[in-house]
């Protein structure tokens, strides 16, 4: 089932950020949510992950854990990579004490291998590059085998090569975990390389829904403006 969102509404201080948004993401698929800064993309992720309460509407998920990869990684800077990745396994009420140290080490090593960073367990986040931090945050997110993975601008602030690497890992994680994923992004390369479908938000409304190919092909004023990064069009920056 993945994620099913129906008629989602969210306001902050009487300003409507999301107005009647609906979409569906099946298991093993990636939806890319795009739009201007402040169009409510990250709010969708925070509502699905439970960090925010919705005003109305429905959010149905297939059960299991929901993982989130934050825009700036949000690694715990006082913990090393091992403790960051195994954090949920060590601190979560239902998992605390369930794993021995050896088991934790094995799980962390597996997850690090999956994101191509074996052997950095003892390093602290400040000793890693932005791209490495992002990949460690991927490893932390998937440690509890989540059924849903949410990515908040995973390639923001990275150079093009690191971005490509991150995009490849997003697809790889989807294939490995069969999780339903949502990627919030501004970058066309991330959309083209990762997304199965695309949802464009503007002023709290969904103004486009379709495949990445449709996004480039369709000549609607919104898609045209976004793809061409044009200042001319229906979408105005506030």
């Amino acid at each position: 089932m993945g994620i099913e969102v129906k008629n989602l509404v969210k306001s902050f201080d009487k300003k409507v950020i999301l107005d009647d948004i609906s979409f569906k993401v099946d298991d093993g698929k990636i939806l890319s949510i795009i739009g201007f800064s402040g169009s409510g993309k990250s709010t969708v992720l925070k509502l699905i992950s439970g960090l925010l309460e919705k005003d109305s509407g429905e959010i149905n998920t297939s059960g299991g854990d929901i993982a989130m990869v934050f825009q700036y990684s949000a690694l715990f800077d006082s913990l090393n990579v091992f403790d960051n990745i195994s954090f949920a396994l060590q601190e979560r009420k239902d998992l605390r004490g369930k794993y021995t140290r050896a088991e934790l080490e094995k799980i962390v090593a597996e997850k690090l291998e999956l994101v191509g960073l074996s052997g950095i367990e003892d390093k602290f986040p400040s000793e890693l590059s932005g791209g490495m931090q992002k990949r460690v945050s991927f490893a932390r997110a998937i440690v509890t085998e989540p059924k849903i993975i949410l990515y908040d601008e995973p390639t923001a602030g990275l150079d093009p090569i690191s971005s490509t690497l991150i995009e490849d890992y997003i697809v790889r994680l989807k294939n490995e975990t069969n999780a339903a994923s949502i990627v919030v992004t501004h970058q066309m390369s991330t959309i083209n390389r990762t997304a199965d479908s695309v949802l464009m938000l503007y002023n709290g409304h969904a103004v486009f829904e379709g495949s990445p190919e449709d996004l480039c092909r369709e000549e609607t004023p919104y898609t045209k403006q976004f793809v061409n990064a044009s200042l001319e069009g229906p979408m105005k920056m506030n």
Partner: protein
Amino acid sequence: MKIYYKATYTYKIFRMFQAEFASFVSTLGNIALFGLDFLRGLKSFPTTFREIMAQSSRFGVSSLPITLSIVGMTSIIIAMQIAGEMVKQGAGNYVGMLVAILMVREEGVIMAGFAIISMIGSSLASEIATMKVTEQIDAIRVLKVNPVHYLFTPRIIAGTLMMPLVVVVASVFGVLGGAVASNLASGLTYKAYFDSVWFGLNMHDLNVCILKSLSFGFVITLISCSCGMEAKDGAKGVGIATTKAVVWSFVAIVILDLIFAAMFFY
């Protein structure tokens, strides 16, 4: 001429006070809620002995030099001010008692409280506030760990348990400092000073001192952590949260001190 009331200074000042009052009530409510959440979490004891020891070390060892300096200086100043005059008036035998009572009942604990707030309270608030504005707290939530249980528990337990230790060491240091200062300022003998100390102090004073420092430790760490959790809007928010933690902690321990004085010495 029509006066638009929203443009008047009276209205603007009223709105400013209204906003400040709303912020006060909101902070008070949040501290209470975080406190309740912390107490609820104690059932499952969501921390480790190692983490409590790490926080205790930060609390005790890091704050001790500054606490000893402040309490020691205060007692020396007090002894210098009163010893000469009291010896002249023939009341030299009461100097030790006066300094000791002042240290154990008031100065030791309140000055240690101020030192701890400046050193540890501000550090706790800024640490948690930074975690909040860099989404680390959100990450803890998404990983299904209660951030109040995870972050507050070791810090509050360490703060509550270490505060009496710091206060006792600081008070002893203060009484010793008073002895040296009295001797230098007025020639009062150490024997006369310490005889007076033992005569003046009793177990009631010590018990209240311990109880008061336990409550100070709890309140300072709870307020500091709670103010940190309220932070928003980047670096500026961290600064605001830290200032708020310090101010609220100062006011809270003075109010608590007043309550203790009224309850046990009035």
